[in-house]
């Protein structure tokens, strides 16, 4: 579940899908190895992001693409790290929710909520009535809300799995 987010996040640093895949895999393995310590880790998500970020830096350092000015360790995120995390958290979750929507419904949502187009513009663009746009938009938001409500539960489920060493 965290995999797409971490992959996308990692790609921001290493720009190589294969390497990113490797790093994320290692990070998940690292997490698994420390499953006994998980009780002390408040936020598994942050923990994973940190691991991935650090591993990515390590890789870049090895590839001599990044030169550190101060220290090797990054115990806190830089502004760009934070931005990247926020981006992943919004986009990946939103996209996974959008996946579940019917195509028309999704298109309306994208044009209206994300692009900020007017109902009329959307109706013209999609060759549908304004009322249909309105109803589709409302339906999309309703469906997405339901989808996104499940997210924390899924995360809890992941934590549960890891802690119980099933994963």
């Amino acid at each position, binding site marked *: 579940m965290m*995999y*797409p987010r971490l*992959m*996308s996040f990692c*790609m921001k640093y290493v720009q190589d*899908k294969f390497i990113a*895949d490797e790093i*994320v*895999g*290692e990070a*998940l*393995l690292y997490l*698994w*190895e420390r499953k006994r310590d998980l009780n002390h880790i408040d*936020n598994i*998500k*942050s923990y994973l992001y940190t691991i991935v970020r650090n591993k990515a830096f390590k890789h870049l350092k090895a590839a001599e693409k990044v030169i550190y000015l101060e220290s090797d360790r990054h115990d*806190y*995120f*830089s*502004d760009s790290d*934070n*931005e990247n*995390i*926020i*981006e992943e*958290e*919004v*986009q*990946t*979750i*939103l*996209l996974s929710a*959008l996946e579940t929507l019917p195509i028309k419904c999704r298109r309306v949502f*994208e*044009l209206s*909520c*994300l*692009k900020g187009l007017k109902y009329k513009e959307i109706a013209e663009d999609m060759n549908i009535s304004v009322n249909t746009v309105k109803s589709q938009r409302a339906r999309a*938001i309703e469906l*997405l*809300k339901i989808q*996104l409500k499940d997210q924390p539960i899924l995360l809890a489920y992941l934590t549960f799995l890891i802690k119980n060493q099933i994963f």
Partner: protein
Amino acid sequence: MIEKKYSNYLIAKLITKSVLEDLNTEENTQLNDWLKQKGNKELYNRIVNVENLQTKQEFLSALNSQDAYNNVQLKIALKKRKRMRRLLQRTIGAAAVLCLFVTAGIKWHNYIQTQQQIISQQTLKEIKPGYEKATLILANGVEINLEASINKQIQLSGAAEINNLNNLLKYRPTADTNAGEIAYNTLYVPTGGIYTVELSDGTKVWLNSNSSIKYPEVFTGSQRVVELTGEAYFDVTKSDKQFVVKTEHQDVTVLGTEFNVSAYTDDVYFSTTLVEGKVKLSSNQNTDVILTPGERGYLQVIGNNTLKVNTVNTRNYTLWKDGRFYFEQEPLENILKKMARWYGTDVKFEDESIKKTRFTGVVSKDKPITYLLDIISKTSRISYMASKNNSGRYEITISKIKQ
């Protein structure tokens, strides 16, 4: 570094909610507060940009979460195995070091013993089980090695014709019954041998190791008399004439029957075990005793010379003739005495207490000596070792394994 007022995840949540127009007043304030900070507005726009999202979606849809999951699982499995191996290696390493010390100690301590063991093993291989071999001493004093003259006619003239066929020495009276003097033959079976003789009246005698029997070539007179030292099993042909087995301490008188007589001079007991028919035991010190089948009469030779009778499993006392040792609740001392007779060894006990340990079992006599000794040592805390003593005889040393 800008001081962080809100967590990344809260911001992410707020952005998502704002897209869905689901923000409450408080959340709205928080988001606006965050957006006021430098660069955040740009970030927000970048995130919710449809083109960016589409690019991201293309990237994500190309990912195979299942594959990734499997990969991680595989890595976990490998890691587990590695860890096990590492643990094992460490354990083995520690064990090896420990072993090294222990072996060094034991090696040093057991060096001489090991040397002895090697000799012991070699010696044990040399010890062969007994087999059919005997010496026949004719009346005229001529000694015939029956082992060397298998399947051979020994004597054609005289009162009896003597044939040696398939380990059986057979006497058959000749037509010439008035041959004058009765000629006595002696059959001697050395240590490690068994031999069978069929007397002129058809009586079969199995002669055990280290035993000898003296008998006439043909029976004349009112009694059939043979003299026995050691152990023999008799299958006497029925006849009006009494059959008498004379031994050092007692006589066994019978009328057609099967029985076993054990009269070794080095045994504490002289015993007669009756399988079939009826026998009478008579000795100087005791009144005559008549045995019924299944009974064993044993005379204590050393000491008070009393004669006792008990009921036994006759197989116990007669199985030797079929090429098997049979022991039932037999003290180790007796077992090894029998074994020593068969294999031609001496036995030495390092510990007196183990002499009385009792064993039950059947062992084929043609097996090597180690077979019997292994059975004993593997089922008890007894070990054995073989060596050659000064007189050139094999010696089995029996000792107790210390706790």
